[in-house]
Every structure is written in C-alpha cells, then in structure tokens.
C-alpha cells in the first residue's frame, strides 16, 4: 500500500482543475460510465439486494471510478490520482479488524460476512450530531454507556460556552470540544464502564485544530478510542482531513474514515450512491489509513437516509464490503422521524434489516430532519440495538419482505415526519426514570408490531 507521504504528494502533484470542472467534466461522466460499464442497476421493487453478481459489479465500478476520476483536493485545486493496482491493493489490504477500548471493555470489531447469522455484530449507539445542553450531558451519555449490550459510543456535542454557541474555528470551539471530551469520558466512567470506547472523536470539533487539541491525552481520549476523518461530498479530500490523517496515524490511533454521499447530488440516484459509498470505503484505507469506517449516505433534500433507494444503496455498499473487503464498518442512519416517534422506530427497523444481514454492524439512529437539541434518548438506542440483534439472525432474503413491510409503515410520512421528544420530557431529571407514558407506549406498540411481523426484537 502507498505510504502516507506518497498519498499527501498526490494532492500536490495531480492535474490542476477548477472544482466545477472536476465535478461536471470528470466525476459525473465517469460515474455514469462505470455504472453502465458494470451494469449497475437498482430494481426499484427491492430494498435488500440478493443478487450476488450485482455486488461484484458495484465493487468493480467503485474501483474503476477511483482509478479514473481520482479525488479532488480543493486546497491545491489538484486531482489526486491513483492507479487501478493501487486501488485494488488498498481494497485487498483493508484491515478486517479494529481493536477498541481499554481494560475489560476492550474488544475487537471484526468485519462480517454476508448472511452471517451466527456472528453477533458490534453494537454502537449514540450520535455526534445531537447537540446537548451541558446540564443534561452527563446523564445522557451515562445513559448510553449503561446499555449493557453496547460495545462503543458516539457522544453528542456541546457547542456552547457560557450560554453562547461557539463560533466555528474560534478559540471557544476548542474549549467546547475539550469540554465535550472531558464530560463524555466522565459520564462513561460513572456508568461503571470506564474503558468503553468513544469512536466518533471528536464530535464538537469542526476543524483539525480543535480536533487535535481536544485529542490530547490529558482530556481523556486515547488511541484506543476512534477518530473520524471525513470525505466531503463528492470525492473531496481537503488539507484538514490530511492533517488529521498525518496526526492520528502518527499516534497509532484508531482512524475512522467517514463519508456522506448525497442522494440527488453529483452522485445522482441509488446506483451512483452505492458506487460512491463503496469508493469511500476503499479510499478510507487508501488515503486516510482508516481501520474502520462510518458509512452515512444521506438524501440531499429530505435530510434522511431511510428512503427506499437509499436503503438499497446503503445495504448494497455493506454487501460489497462484506463480500470483497470485510472492513469494520458502522452505518449512520439519518432518520426522518423525531426521537421516540413511531416513524423513527420503523425507519430503524427497515434500516437494520437492510444493513445487518448485509454484513454491517449495528448503529442506533439519529433523527436528522426532525433533530432538535437535547433529543438523544438512551432508551431509543437500546431498542434500536435490540432491533439490530434481531436482524442479525436473518439472511438477506428473509430480511427483504420485513424491510418492505416496515418501510410501508412510514413511507407516506417521509415529507412530513412527526416531531419527537426531548430528554427532559421523557426522563425525570433527578431519578433518571422514564416518566412519559406515551413515549413508552409507542415503543411497546412498535416492538409488538415488529415481532408480530417477523422481526423478533426481544428486550435485552
């Protein structure tokens, strides 16, 4: 595999090009060409793919796209080019395991195979896009860490200093990122699971300076946690990302590449987003040396990932990973419904059925369209992890009709999702007991309905 300096030099030496020329004259035509070349086609009646030849076609299309379009570095206005051999070698050498956590919470996330009904998936919960008031931050994160079946956490962000939002790139942002890390680690310690890893380092840091500052060991993060480095949509690798790559590889930390291909954007529809999602899985190894990946395709306009074509594309990218790479990967579900709503739970049921039998790990959901501050409810996340465990007992063929049934339960609400609950509505802030009867009733009703439909979601 290429060493890091070789990779960084590609950003300084590739062809010079305006960003719009890269998108419209290079990326978009090449993407359409590789989709045709490898006959990648979504059958609009399906959510969960069961055609193994199609998996190979998507993989080949992704390899060709990286080799023929490259990635774009906006800081140098150059295309980072890679040969087909370099791309294939990165896919072949993609790490199949990643070790996270400390002490008795230390555990290995291993890439899964297709239809692997015996291997228990990694269980990851939480979410970095939730902004959470400092007053309930400790309780919220402790609530997540206290879910006994959980292997790792994404912790929410504190974006305020003394009641004001920290401005991006400001000194206050560095302090907010540090505060987020310190409080998250303390909340996890209070749960009695001090070694539990945080693998969305660092949610409150929007730039490399904040991230590197808050990653200093005296604030509580360790190389055995996980640090995220993102690709910008589409196929954009900026210097900030390469700076993080240089640093976190230098301290031998777990590095998570992350990407949000945008449905409706330059990648187009289902086929383009499946191919792009696979490109990012490979490029996460090739460019960032990531040993795990966050896969987070998103609908550009609807701001959710639980539409039918996106479920197919996300499932397909997991299938390609499971068949060709088995890179440790969690999937980040952006959901339309607000926290605790019926729609929110059915979206997660459909998402888990798409991803887990496809070889993916379990990740609880994030309300994205209806996300509001202080809406991270730990009890939702336990329920969604339980859904993932139930989905792990099914093959793709068994998952497909269930995914269709659960998609049908929220399809008509996609453009007008229900608002969700806040932490303070659902939990007693002193006892931390759930006090909202409707919230519990909705979850119980959905659990009973999904069990009746065939997804055996038992309380853990």
């Amino acid at each position, binding site marked *: 595999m290429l060493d890091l300096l070789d990779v960084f030099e590609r950003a300084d030496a590739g062809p010079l090009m305006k960003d719009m020329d890269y*998108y*419209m004259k290079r990326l*978009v035509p090449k993407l359409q060409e590789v989709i045709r070349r490898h006959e990648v086609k979504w059958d609009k009646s399906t959510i969960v793919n069961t055609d193994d030849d199609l998996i190979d076609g998507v993989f080949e299309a992704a390899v060709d796209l990286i080799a023929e379009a490259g990635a774009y570095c*906006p800081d140098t206005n150059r295309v980072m080019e890679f040969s087909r051999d370099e791309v294939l070698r990165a896919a072949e050498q993609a790490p199949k395991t990643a070790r996270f956590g400390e002490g008795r919470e230390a555990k290995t996330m291993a890439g899964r195979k297709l239809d692997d009904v015996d291997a228990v998936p990694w269980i990851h919960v939480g979410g970095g896009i939730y*902004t959470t008031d400092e007053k309930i931050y400790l309780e919220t994160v402790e609530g997540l860490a206290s879910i006994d079946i959980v292997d790792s956490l994404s912790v929410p962000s504190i*974006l305020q200093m003394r009641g004001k*939002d*920290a*401005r*991006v*790139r400001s000194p206050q*942002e560095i302090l907010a990122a540090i505060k987020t890390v310190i409080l998250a680690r303390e909340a996890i310690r209070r749960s009695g699971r001090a070694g539990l890893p945080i693998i969305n380092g660092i949610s409150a840091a*929007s730039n490399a300076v904040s991230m590197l500052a808050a990653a200093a060991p005296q604030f509580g993060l360790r190389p055995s946690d996980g640090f995220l480095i993102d690709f*910008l*949509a589409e196929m954009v690798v*900026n210097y900030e990302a390469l700076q993080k790559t240089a640093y976190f590889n230098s301290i031998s930390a777990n590095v998570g590449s992350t990407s949000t291909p*945008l*449905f*409706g*954007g*330059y*990648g*187009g*529809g289902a086929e*383009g987003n499946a191919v792009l999602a696979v490109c990012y899985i490979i490029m996460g190894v090739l460019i960032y040396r990531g040993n795990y990946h966050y896969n987070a395709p998103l609908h*550009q*306009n609807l*701001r959710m990932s639980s*539409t039918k*074509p996106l479920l197919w594309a996300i499932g397909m990218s997991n299938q390609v990973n499971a068949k060709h790479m088995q890179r440790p990967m969690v999937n980040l579900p952006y959901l339309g419904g607000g926290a605790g709503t019926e729609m929110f739970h059915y979206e997660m049921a459909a998402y888990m059925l798409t991803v887990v039998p496809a070889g993916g790990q379990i990740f609880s959901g994030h309300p994205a369209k209806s996300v509001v501050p202080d809406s991270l409810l730990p009890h939702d996340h336990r329920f969604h992890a339980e859904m993932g465990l139930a989905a792990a007992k099914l093959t793709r063929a068994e998952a497909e009709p269930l995914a269709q049934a659960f998609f049908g339960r929220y399809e008509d609400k996609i453009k007008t999702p229900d608002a969700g609950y806040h932490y303070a509505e659902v939990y007693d802030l002193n006892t931390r007991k759930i006090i909202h009867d409707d919230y519990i009733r909705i979850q119980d009703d959905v659990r009973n309905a999904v069990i009746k439909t065939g997804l055996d979601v038992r309380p853990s």
Partner: protein
Amino acid sequence: MDAKDILTETSEALVDLDQDKVLETINKGLEAGLKPMDIIEKGLLPGINTVGDEFEQDIKFLPEMMSAAMIFQEAMAILQPKIEEQGGADRKVGTVVLGAVKGDLHTIGKDIVKILLKTSGFTVHDLGMDVGTFSFIDKAEEVNADIIAMSALLTTTLVNQRDLIEALEGQGKRDRFKVMVGGGAVTQSWADEIQADAYSDTAFSAAKAAKRLVGRG
C-alpha cells in the same frame, strides 16, 4: 409544424437535455415568426419546470439540473439579443449574491439554489464557500444586488448570518439589500431571530422566496 408543436418540441428537448435539439427548435421558432418571449415562456420555462419537478421527485438529479440550466443559458444567449432588438423588456428579475458563510465548506445545496435562481431569471454571483461577511456586502454593492443569500450547514457557522445583518445595519445599508438564509442548520425561528427577510428549507422554495422579495413572485 405549427407554433405549438415547435414550443412543445423545445420543452421536450430541454427535458431530454438535448442541447442541439433545443437550439435547433428555437431557431426554427424564430424563423417561423414566434416572439422570443413566447419561446421562453411557453417552451423553455415549461421544460425547465418539468426538470425541476423531476428533481424534486428523485427522477433527475443535480448533474441533470446543471445540464438543463446550461442549455437554458445557451438558449437565452440566442433569445436575449432578439428581445432587445425588438425593444422588449429584459427577462432579468433581479440580482443575487450567493455563498456559504465563513467556516462552511458545504456547497451542494447552495449550487442547486444557484441553478434555480438562474433559471428563474436572476443574475447570480456565486461567491462559493467560506465567504466572509464583508465579501458578501462588498460584492452586493459592486453588482448592485437586490438580495444577499447565505447558506449554513453547521450550527457553529450560523452566527455568521447574524453578523452580516448586523454589519449591514452598522453600515446603514440594511434597507438596501434583502437578506435570505438557508442551509441544514437554519430554521424559521433562527431567521426570525436575526430578522432575515426570507428563510427557505428547500432550493425550490428559495427561488420562489427570492421572486417574492423582488416583487415578482
């Protein structure tokens, strides 16, 4: 072929993203004596609206929208001089200075808004991403803009939208420009709080809001 057929062909060719055919039917229409404004209003605009509808329904995507907008502009390069020759009114409905605020590197949503503003008849000056407060204002003054439109995807960049309004007030220019805000982090309540003139949660509603702001909606 009668006038109606020519206009239908123009519209369909635009939906098919067939630039040669669009330009061919426009020239055919002009030769047949059709008024340039009729070709725009009854041929090109129904076509671009269909492309927009298909974009909203996930039938067409950003690259197709951009191609349609480019074809539309090529067509306008033929029709606009004819309109001026005939003493007709300029189709331009206003000028917008557009960009993602300081600290924000996300541009796809802004790019879609740009296309829709252009095809709605606006002249758009796109300043790109990570745009400073005074860069917006300086450009708006330079081009005598009607509207300054800012996007912000990250919560931590929202404050830059408020700064722009504060800067306009500080310079005594608040009445000179309408201010539109949008982007993933923006809500109606935020727009109300900072006293923006318009907020849009989709690119399509942004184009409609812009027309309303200049009294053409």
